[in-house]
């Protein structure tokens, strides 16, 4: 267990700045997700913490001690690699025991610790198999056991769930969280998948172009992204351009094309009348309505895609922009038909349009 602190961590590759003076403090036992698209600097940050990449500037502190100059093989950091990186010429036991053998521990202690770790990831009895004889999920558990068996001070997870099918993902999410809490190890996850980030981490850090855009609890980042860019990345689908147009009780009015929508006043605090703004809302929060009312708008269905538990629509004619509701009722929705949509005020995120 340890704390991890990044101070002004910077990495430049020639002209290109991959990570730009990043600051971060992870408490003991905390699980933090670095979330961003490819090229946002999250992997470079991970590699700098691991010691594979040398920072251009800044410091990495583990338990308050600067480790930037310590070579990677003496940092005692456990890493879980995206493609697992299991040694194909070694059995499961040898893979997990690799780090312990390097420490020249007594044989029976190695056996004990490997077996304990394999039990923790529910792979007891698999120790004599080779990685190629295991399923994807099992390989992943070996990789996790191997990263943890040396009792590292920090655990780094690189896209831990991206190679798994949907069912295994959910299973491993629960598993990783359970093991991380059980061992209380400070953990950094790197991922491009917002669902993975919010379901695993205690705190989520959204990155783009080497900068931190937002730090917050999973719910904050998921429900209240700090900018339209983050909202887009967090899975918001419908974005409406509008103009702030006065207030009504504790609601603010936003004019979007021919319609006026209401949003909660506290969501639109930074807007003054006449400001251009952007409203963002998730597909699943747009509903169909029986009758006209506040925030209902009529539109024409352009396409309807059945997705199992929801049906995703493309609706035009509501505003200038296309609207993408995901509705539960399929019955009377067909391409070309008219729908009355309700945009619940509390689900809108409101941003000043800075352009």
């Amino acid at each position: 267990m340890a704390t991890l602190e990044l101070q002004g961590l910077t990495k430049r590759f020639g002209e290109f700045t991959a990570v730009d003076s990043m600051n971060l403090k992870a408490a003991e036992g905390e699980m933090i997700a670095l979330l961003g698209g490819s090229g946002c600097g999250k992997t470079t940050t991970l590699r700098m913490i691991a010691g594979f990449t040398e920072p251009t500037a800044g410091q990495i502190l583990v338990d308050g001690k600067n480790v930037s100059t310590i070579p990677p093989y003496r940092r005692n950091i456990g890493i879980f690699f995206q493609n697992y990186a299991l040694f194909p010429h070694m059995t499961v036991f040898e893979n997990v025991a690799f780090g312990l053998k390097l420490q020249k521990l007594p044989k029976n202690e190695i056996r004990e610790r490997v077996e304990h770790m394999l039990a923790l990831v529910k792979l007891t009895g698999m120790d004599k198999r080779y990685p190629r004889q295991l399923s994807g999920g099992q390989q992943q558990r070996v990789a996790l056991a191997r990263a943890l068996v040396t009792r590292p001070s920090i655990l780094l997870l690189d896209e831990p769930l991206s190679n798994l099918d949907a069912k295994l993902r959910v299973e491993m999410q629960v598993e990783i969280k359970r093991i991380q809490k059980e061992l209380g190890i400070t953990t950094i996850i790197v991922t491009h998948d917002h669902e993975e980030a919010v379901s695993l981490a205690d705190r989520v850090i959204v990155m783009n172009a080497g900068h931190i855009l937002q730090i917050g609890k999973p719910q904050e980042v998921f429900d209240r992204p700090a900018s339209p860019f983050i909202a887009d990345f967090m899975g918001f689908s419908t974005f409406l351009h509008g103009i702030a147009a006065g207030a009504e009780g504790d609601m603010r009015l936003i004019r979007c094309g021919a319609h006026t929508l209401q949003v909660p006043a506290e969501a639109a605090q930074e807007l003054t009348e006449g400001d251009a703004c952007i409203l963002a809302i998730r597909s699943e929060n747009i509903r169909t309505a029986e009758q006209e009312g506040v925030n209902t708008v009529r539109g024409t269905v352009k396409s309807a895609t059945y997705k199992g538990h929801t049906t995703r629509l493309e609706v035009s004619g509501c505003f200038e922009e296309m609207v993408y509701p995901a509705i539960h009722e399929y019955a009377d929705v067909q391409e070309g038909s008219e729908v009355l949509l309700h945009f619940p005020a509390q689900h809108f995120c409101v941003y000043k349009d800075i352009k």
Partner: protein
Amino acid sequence: MREKDVNLPCRIFAILVMLFLLAPLVVIVIASFTPTALITFPPQGFSLKWYANIFGSSTHFMDGLVNSLKIGILATAADILLGVTAALSVCRYSFKGKDALLNYYTSPMYVPSVAFAFVLLQVYSQIGGVPGMLRIFIGHLIIILPYIVRNTVSVLHVFNWTLEDAATSMGATPIQVFFKITIPLARPGIMAGALLAFLYSFDEVALSSLLSTPRFITLPIRIMNYMELTFDPTLAAISTLLILASLVLIVLMEKFVGLDMFVK
């Protein structure tokens, strides 16, 4: 589904091709047991005396064999060091002119060995007094290098370099990573290359015949010299033994390459 049955003309053609490849070898093997001094086929009777002749002192075949083994083993061993490091240099790092460098490493494959031997001969005569073994060793060192480089590169080309990072993160120093991860995983390619290189050196005639001195002659040259003077079944006998030795090596190679350690 692929068709399982090949039609008859195809089969006959395939069998003829195989016979064409195999027939000379069979003739040589059978002829080696001829009791008469002239190679006749089919042989009149059975004798092992030509085999005894190989090991007799008059032919010097055994000296040639020892020399060839010395050259083959030393040159291959030295080239494993050179070839593996050369292969690592072009696979591990990305830099400008990487492909050109790889082509440079493998260029001895494309230069005619006679031309190459001629140049070496010039150099040796300039220096003067270069011992016979060193003359051939240097030549072989260069011409067999491409086999080791190529085979090692083909393995490293698909090598998962993250494995090195993984080992490092578990506390392995760069040297430990090299010997516990990189080398064991590249071994099938290195071994395949080494066997091909050794066989090439063991069999090499053109370069060796130009560079050899009367005091240091390799087995193929010894056989050639013998053939010029005498044409008896001793040649068939030694050919049979060489075929046998090659077979053993090929089986060994199959075993090494067939392990498929690097296939996930």
